Structures are given as structure tokens and as C-alpha cells.
């Protein structure tokens, strides 16, 4: 097994016990997203979500807050977090709109799915040891009126700048990426492929299950029809018909569970994979900037002092970025394992339950 990034990061490991204690005892920020409501203005219609915060942290003036936020506000928060911490892995938001399946923006299912994802997003952020202390998060959770805050900050122009630099650096190419990050990059590519495949397979399974249920629904009435022509045999035939009806209900529940538990989790990690790619790119950009400047420094003899200071600053920046990523990387991996494991366990359990119920229905039909 090649050296995986997480094995390298093990160098930075802290004592196990200490860490566990810290995690268990320090959850002091609880956030809920609920009550989606439709808001209609002259210009547009949109959904507002209620964000309820309960905390014991001293930085907060109060211990409870209730604010109303729309999807755009979440987008703003996330982009701020990414700007402040370019090489930390910020949990993704649900997508802006769903193209396939022609889901309407104000469809109840869509709103509920989005609400759950937004809830998860804030909970992931609040569980993050660094991001949860971010100023913008505090503002997001507490300010009654967010629009004034949104106008502040670097915003559009800085994003433009970043993009320009990114393009320039990609053209230039990275001189020497540390091996651990190359391995990370490779892992991210592979992980992205795999998680997308799992997502696709799951969608396909759901589709096949749905078609199976459709046929099953045609199957049971045939037995009932036959029972109508029989005397002695009628009871047994009706028994089979009833069994099939219940089995198709169980299968529908099975499908529902897949859609509600496994699919959203897989989907989130598909988005995570994209986030990871972006993080890797940003890290590369930071290094590229440093390299560009050091080349400039090497070629220009004059003004060395001034440049040197800038250089030191950039060098620090690179180191910070790298360490931040390394640290967050193992944290993310852990979180990913926990989430996926839990989703797969739940799926396995649901399957066990499903087969048990189907077995029971067949058993019941026998004893008629």
C-alpha cells in the first residue's frame, strides 16, 4: 500500500485521549435549520429558512438566536469561509437548482431536501474547530439583517483577482509540488470517480426497484382475478395476492429509505470531491504565487530587502496553507468514513428489515 496522505499526517498526531475528550466536551454550538417559508416581494419569490442557534460560547452576546436566511445568504457565508481559509475543506452546499428531473424550485420535496442539506452544512461548520469560530459565521447566525454585512468584505473583485492569478499560474505550471500533496491530488481524483460511480449505481438501483414495484403491482391482481373463478383454491390465491400487495409496499419503503438516507449522503460527498479539487487548486495557487515571486526575486538584484519581506510573508503563507490542509485532511477523511459508514450500515439494516418483512408476509400467507 503506497503511503497515503493520512499516514503521513500521522506525524502530527496528538494524544488520542486528549482529543476525544476535547471533542466530546466542547460541543457548545447547536444549530437547527427548519420552517421553510415562502416570501413574496414585488421582484421575486423565494424561500426563507429559520436558523436557530443555541450556544454557551462567550463570544456570543446571547445564548439563543433566531434568524431567517435564504439560500443566497448561505452561499455568501460559504464563500466568505473559503476566502478566509482557502485550504480548509468547507462542506459543500446543496446545488443551486436541479437540472435533471425538471424539479421545480418550490416543489415541497425539493425544499425539504435542501433544508436538510443546509442543516447539515451548518452543523458541519459548527463542528469544525476553526471554521466554527469564524466571524462571518457569527454574523450569519446572529444578525437580524444580513444584507448590510454582505456588502462588506473583498467580494467580487478579489474573486476576480484570484481567478486571474489561478489562470496565470496554471499556465505557468507548478515547479515542485510536495509529494504528499501530489498523492492527495491523485486520491482526490480517484475518490471523486468512485463516489460518483457509487452515486450512479445507487440511482440505477432505485430506478430498477421502481420498475420492479410497478410490475409487482400488476402481478397481485392476477391472483385475485383467478381466485374469483375458484372455490377450494380461492383462499390460497387470495393469500398470495395479499402477500404480494404488502411486499410491494415494503419495497416502496425500501426505495424511500435509499432515497432519503443513502442518496443524499452520497450526493454530498460527490460535491465534497469537487470542493477537495478546488482546495487542491487553491493550495497550488498559493505555492505558485510564492514560486513566481521567488523567481522574480532571483532575477532582480535591486530592492532585495523589500522583496525579501514580501517573500517571507508569502513563504509563511505557503506553510500555513499546507499545514492547514494537512490537518484538515485527516479530519475530513475521518468525517467521510463516519458518514458513509453510517449511511451504508443504515442501508444494510433497512435491507435486513425488508427481507425479514417479506419473509413474514410469505409466512402469513402460508398459514391461511
Amino acid at each position, binding site marked *: *500500500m503506497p503511503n*497515503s496522505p*493520512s*499516514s503521513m499526517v500521522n506525524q*502530527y*498526531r*496528538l494524544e*488520542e485521549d486528549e*482529543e*476525544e475528550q*476535547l*471533542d466530546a466536551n466542547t460541543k457548545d454550538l447547536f444549530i437547527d435549520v427548519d420552517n421553510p417559508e415562502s416570501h413574496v416581494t414585488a421582484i421575486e419569490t423565494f424561500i426563507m429558512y429559520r436558523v436557530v442557534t443555541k450556544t454557551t460560547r462567550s463570544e456570543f452576546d446571547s445564548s439563543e438566536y433566531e434568524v431567517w436566511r435564504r439560500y443566497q445568504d448561505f452561499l455568501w457565508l460559504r464563500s466568505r469561509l473559503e476566502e478566509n*481559509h482557502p485550504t480548509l475543506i468547507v462542506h459543500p452546499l446543496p446545488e443551486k437548482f436541479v437540472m435533471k428531473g425538471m424539479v421545480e424550485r418550490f416543489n415541497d420535496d425539493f425544499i425539504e431536501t435542501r433544508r436538510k442539506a443546509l442543516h447539515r452544512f451548518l452543523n458541519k461548520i459548527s463542528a469544525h*474547530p*476553526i471554521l466554527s469560530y469564524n466571524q462571518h459565521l457569527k454574523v450569519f447566525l446572529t444578525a437580524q439583517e444580513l444584507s448590510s454585512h454582505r456588502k462588506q468584505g473583498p467580494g467580487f473583485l478579489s474573486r476576480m483577482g484570484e481567478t486571474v492569478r489561478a489562470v496565470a499560474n496554471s499556465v505557468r505550471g507548478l515547479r515542485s509540488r510536495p509529494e504528499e500533496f501530489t498523492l492527495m491530488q491523485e*486520491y482526490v481524483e*480517484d*475518490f471523486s470517480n468512485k463516489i460518483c460511480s*457509487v452515486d450512479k449505481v445507487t440511482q440505477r*438501483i432505485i430506478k*430498477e426497484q421502481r*420498475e*420492479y414495484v*410497478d*410490475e409487482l403491482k*400488476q*402481478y397481485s391482481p*392476477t391472483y385475485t*382475478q*383467478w381466485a374469483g*373463478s*375458484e372455490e*377450494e*383454491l380461492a383462499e*390460497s*390465491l387470495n*393469500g*398470495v395476492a395479499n402477500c404480494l400487495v404488502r411486499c410491494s409496499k415494503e419495497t416502496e419503503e425500501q426505495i424511500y429509505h435509499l432515497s432519503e438516507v443513502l442518496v443524499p449522503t452520497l450526493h454530498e460527498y460527490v460535491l465534497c470531491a469537487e470542493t477537495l479539487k478546488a482546495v487542491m487548486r487553491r493550495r497550488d495557487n498559493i505555492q505558485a504565487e510564492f514560486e513566481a515571486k521567488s523567481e522574480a526575486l532571483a532575477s532582480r538584484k535591486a530592492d532585495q530587502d523589500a522583496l525579501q519581506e514580501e517573500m517571507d510573508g508569502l513563504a509563511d503563507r505557503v506553510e500555513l496553507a499546507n*499545514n*492547514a490542509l494537512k*490537518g*484538515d485532511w*485527516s*479530519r475530513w*477523511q*475521518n468525517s467521510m*468514513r463516519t458518514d*458513509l*459508514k453510517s449511511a*451504508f*450500515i443504515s442501508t444494510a*439494516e433497512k*435491507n*435486513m428489515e425488508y*427481507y425479514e418483512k417479506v*419473509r413474514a408476509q*410469505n*409466512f402469513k*400467507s*402460508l398459514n391461511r
Partner: protein
Amino acid sequence: MADSASSEEVAVIGNTDITSVESENNLINTMVERGTALLRKMEINVAEAEKRTGKNTVNMQETYTVYLIEIRPAETVPEGGTPATPDTLWRRYSEFELLRTYLLVTYPYIIIPPLPEKRAEFVWHKLSADNLDPDFVERRRVGLENFLLRVASHPVLSNDKIFFLFLTEVSAQAFKHCLIYDPFVVFSRRFTALKQYSDELNTVISQLLRVRAKVADRLYGVYKVHGNYGRVFSEWSAIEKEMGDGLQSAGHHMDTYAASIDDILEEEEHYADQLKEYLFYTEAVRSVCRKHELIQYELEMAALDLAHKKQQKEELVTGTVRVFSLKGMTSKLFGQESQEQRESRLAALEQGIQEGEESLKEKNTECQEFMRTAWEDIERFKEQKDKDLREALISYAIMQISMCKKVRSSVYNKAKETWTTLQETTTRSHFHLFFFFSFSC
């Protein structure tokens, strides 16, 4: 085979509740003495109509019309003398219907005269559609009389026992009882029901097999797609460290699951075969019903043939021409035939009649024998079918049960264990380091 003069006995095809001796006698009587029509013995009228009220089957009051049927011996009335008092009884329209249905069932190859309409149809504007309207009732009375006369003048139908009862049995209850329990009717009804059942069974099993195949197809799809999980998990396990073994194992379980469908569907085919056997059985049942129809047909044709021969003999003997025949025509045109010719024709006819009676007797026996033995076997078949199919359904359910148990324990229970025991990495976040970094960003 002497001509006996008993006029009370009525012969009917398939009269199976009498002894063989009586049966023989009845066959003798079939058409010889009574002539070709009941009409020669009696006059039939539908004389009047009356309104009645009473309780119907669902215990509700209803108003209906009854018709008076008069029967008197067909003798000429002397000048100035009063006609003999007729025997009378009342019948309502539904009883006429019962009679007609009986005739349809008993003589499927004879064209049964129709009844006048039950409800007024084809009415023009001012004509009343009310069944109780006196004009309608009067027109119906005429129609019903016409019906009775048509039946009475049919060479075969006129000899029917049930028809005779219709004209003579005063109690509607008793008449219905005889009709329903007439053995021939019972058997015919059974065979008709059997044919219908056989067709229904054929249709429903065909449909069931079709749908089952579609269900199996879909189920196959579901299982096989899980095989894709196997492949992906296996590939994914190669890039993971802590999760690697778990993913590999989970992939293996998914492969097992995907492969298991082949055995499952193979066992289901066995169930499908059991159903197919009874699908093909319906063909055999149908051919028994067809045989019954054929025998019935031959019987009626023999009766009809005999009736015609007797009619011809009667014409020859009495000199009356009823039925158009070429011989009759030519003799009219070209003059009467000689006494010798007549006698030889008569002798030939009598020969034919004797043979016909023999043939009819044989066919009657054959028909009864067939119905009896066929029905015995049909009862046997029904028992066998119920038993076999019930067992097939039971084994189907048992098979589903064992499949569920297997999948649950050998796939998902194991998969769950795999995921549960997945090593959680002990590498946690670098808490302190993060604190430092966050404040310096």
C-alpha cells in the same frame, strides 16, 4: 316396437331419471303415435291477461302480469254444441323465459322460437313503453300464444316433457322444480359451466405467467445492478487505507447478492412449470366439452331426422302434403304415383324409421354414458387440480421465505457487520495547531 296407444307418456331426449325399460318405451313413443305435433292432440291458447301483485325475491311488493293458458282436446265441436271446458293455468312472462332458456340449453342445435320482447323496444313516439300498459299487454299475449304454437308444432320440441309440464302443471313452483332438477338440464349446465371455467382458467394462467415473467425480469435487473457496487467498491478499496478492507468485503457481499438471483429465478421456473401444466390441461378439458357438444349434436340430428321420416310417412299415409318435397311437386305436376309405388315408398320409410329409432336409442345411451363417465373424471380432475395447485402455491411461498432468510443473513447481515467493525481512524484533528493557524490567517 309395437305401436302403443298411450297418450300420456311423454318422451324426451335424455330423460335419465327413468328405468331402461321405460326409457325404451318412451323412445318408441317418441314420434310414432303422437304424430309430429302436440297440436294434433290439443289446442293451445293464451286467452287472457291479468294484473297481480305479490312479493318478489327481495321481499318487495311488485305488480306483474299473468297470462291464462288454455288447453282443450283438439276435437271438432258438433254444430250447436259447447266446446269442452279447457284446462287452464296462469303463467307469467318470467316463466316463459325459464322454459325458453331450458329449451336453448337442452336443444342447442335447434332453432328455438323467440319470445315477444320483455320490455317495449323500437317504440315510436306515442307508443307507451310501460309494461303494464293494456295495449302492450295485449300485443304480448298474442306473441306468447304464437311462441307456444311454434314450439308445439316443432317435431322435436313438441315432445319435450318440460314443455308439456309448462302447459299442464298448475303450480309454478312445481314446474320450476322439475325444470331445475331435470337431469339433462343439470348436466348441460355443468358442461357449460365447465367450458366457461376452462376458458377463464386458461386466460388467467396465461396472464399470470406473462406478468410473472416481467416481474422476474425486473427483479433480475435489481440484483444485477448491485453487482456494479461490487466492482466499484473493489476499485475504491484500492485507494483507501482504513476503509480498504471494509470496502473490499462489502463489494464481495454485493457480488454474492448479484449472483444469487440466478438460483432464485431457476427455482421460480419450477413454479411456473407447475402452472403451465394446468394451462395445457385446460385444452384437454375443452376438448371433453367439445366432445359433449358433438354427441349432443348427433343426438339432436338423429331425433330431427327421425321426426322428418315420420312426418313423411304420415303424409304418405294420409295423403296430406305438409312439407315441400320434389316428389310431391312432381306428382302434382305429372300425376299421382301408382299404388305400388306408394307402398314401396312406405315400406322404405318404415324401414328408415326403424333404423332411425335404433340409432336414436343408441345415441341416447351413448350420450348418457358419456356424460356420466366424463363428469366422474371431471370431478376427479378438479380435486387433483385443487390439490396440486395449492401445493404449488405453498412451495412458492416457502421458496420466497428461504430466499429472504438467505439474503438477509448471508448478504446484509454480513455487510452490516463489515461496516460496523470498520476501523475508525484514531487520527483526529490537530486542535491546538488549528487554533494557532486560525488566529494568524
